[in-house]
């Protein structure tokens, strides 16, 4: 595989704080690389450097074999596009927002119109051209911001927490749009995240970043195997557990993740393994629900985070699970820290790494 971008011994300071410490990293062409790390680990700065928006104090940035300098940064930026964690929209129509980059590239009007249409279709917002961008809902705005970058079809796409704080519906639309771009254009994608995507969009490689240093880099299977050993200190990935797997008579796999928590998963695995359950696949209820789902656990809510339309709960069932429910459900069920709840999820929702 060819190397698309390269960081060599890169160090970046902000004032007297070292944000990135001697980072060396190769981005392979066509790969999806996930940057996993807690807040303040340097993920965003790393993405900005790959977007040629920030300059390192020392070290080298190379893109397609060429060193990035002040003189060529502007030209290089035409080959990369970054979607920021915060929603940044121009105070104008959806069309003008998405068309901005195309106008900078001096494409003809007809082409721009077509491309904007296609981009809106990709994020399932057809017909939104004339709407005022700032008046859309949070989820729609984030999709517009994504469409604005995807429409440029750059070689490198940088995403900073693309689905954080999105409700499941919007998150799925984002994920599918990104998956489509990856499939059709083989765009190289580097994304900072807290959360793993569904199996179909799992990254090719994961880089763990902490305190400005890349501590591990490799395929997901490798990383999760190592993660399990220092999971306590690395709270960056929700609902990832290490455990021991045993085949069951029914043909499924039972994974013991400790503290008496046994998780049933479809698929075959034996021995040491890691599992991951998407917070959105977990149902929260106040009493036990009789269903076909194989995994039911009783626990207590230990933490509540409010993100507007979506509420994230941390539930201790012996091990801590992160679950996501709508604000409405949260209020209707009168949940709070300390509430006893039941978590239910299907065996097929358990991803064996």
């Amino acid at each position, binding site marked *: 595989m060819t190397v698309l971008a390269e960081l060599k011994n890169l160090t970046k300071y902000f004032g007297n704080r070292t944000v990135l410490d001697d980072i060396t990293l190769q981005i392979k062409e066509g790969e999806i690389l996930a940057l996993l790390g807690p807040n303040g680990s340097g993920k965003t700065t790393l993405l*900005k450097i790959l977007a040629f928006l920030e300059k390192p104090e020392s070290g080298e940035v190379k893109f397609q074999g060429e060193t990035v300098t002040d003189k060529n940064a502007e030209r290089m930026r*035409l080959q990369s*596009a970054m979607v920021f964690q915060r929603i*940044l929209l*121009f105070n104008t129509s959806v069309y003008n927002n998405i068309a901005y980059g195309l106008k900078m590239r001096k494409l003809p009007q007809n082409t721009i119109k077509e491309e904007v249409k296609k981009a809106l279709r990709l994020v399932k917002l057809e017909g939104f051209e004339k709407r005022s961008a700032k008046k859309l809902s949070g989820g729609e705005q984030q999709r517009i911001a994504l469409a604005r970058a995807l429409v440029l079809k750059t070689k490198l796409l940088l995403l900073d927490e693309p689905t954080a704080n999105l409700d499941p519906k919007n998150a799925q639309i984002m994920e599918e749009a990104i998956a489509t771009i990856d499939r059709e254009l083989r765009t190289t994608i580097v994304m900072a995240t807290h959360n793993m995507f569904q199996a179909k969009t799992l990254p090719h490689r994961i880089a763990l970043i902490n305190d400005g240093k890349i501590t591990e880099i490799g395929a997901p299977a490798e990383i999760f195997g190592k993660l399990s050993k220092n999971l306590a200190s690395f709270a960056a990935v929700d609902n990832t557990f290490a455990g021991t797997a045993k085949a069951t008579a029914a043909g499924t796999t039972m994974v013991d993740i400790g503290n008496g928590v046994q998780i049933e998963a479809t698929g075959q695995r034996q021995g040491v393994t890691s599992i991951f359950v998407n917070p959105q696949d977990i149902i929260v209820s106040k009493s036990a629900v009789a269903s076909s789902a194989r995994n039911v656990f009783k626990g207590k809510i230990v933490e509540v985070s409010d993100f507007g339309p979506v509420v994230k709960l941390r539930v201790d069932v012996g091990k801590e699970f992160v679950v996501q429910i709508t604000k409405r459900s949260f209020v209707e069920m009168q949940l709070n820290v300390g509430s006893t709840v039941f978590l239910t999820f299907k065996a097929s929702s358990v991803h064996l790494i």
Partner: protein
Amino acid sequence: MNPIIDGIVKAFQLIFSGDPTVYRIVYRSLFFSGTATILAALWGTPIAMLLGLKDFRGKPIIKGIFNALIGMPTVALGLILFLIFSKAGPLGFLGLLYTPGAIILGEAVLVTPLVVSIATTAIEAVDPEMINLAKTLGASESQASIAILKEAFNGVIFSNIASFNRAIAELGVALLVGGNIAGLTDVLTTDISKYTQRGDLAYAIALSIILMAIVFGINLIIIIARNPKVLATFGRSPQ
């Protein structure tokens, strides 16, 4: 009849009959102050962009100076410009004194601090990450700056309208460097002053009403433009 009431009645007659003397003065005022505002915007906007977007040593001082200059007494500025444009002054060779050019230039200088201060504040209010956004989408440094300017558009327009109001309503500069020469450099303010002193109440009042209509009218438009909800309060029935 009471000369004041007489004056007011005659003033309205002048206004509604479209009296040419009156309206020539109005157009001249609008033209001088309008051009002055455009000039101030032309050289003031780049300064505001510099102050709003870039960081450099002494920036707070320069911003402070522009802020302070907003309150410059118009007569004081008028005197300074008079001295500069007079035959003995450094720009005397331009022969600008007592010409329309002097008023336009003078009022432009007067309102520049206003343009700069308001526009700078508007530009600073734009999220600084927008520059990175523009750049990552392919903008050059200058294209990115223009994008920021567009985001600050409302504030920039407001700075221009406020400047126009200040220019058209000022007396000191127009009087001292224009000389209030009838038909050439007389404007609304200088003529209101002249007619009042002469006892020509009808003209003085007519011009005053028009000047106030212009200034208040523009202010009203600004208020509504910034907060369209104000209009709704007029349509609501008492409860």
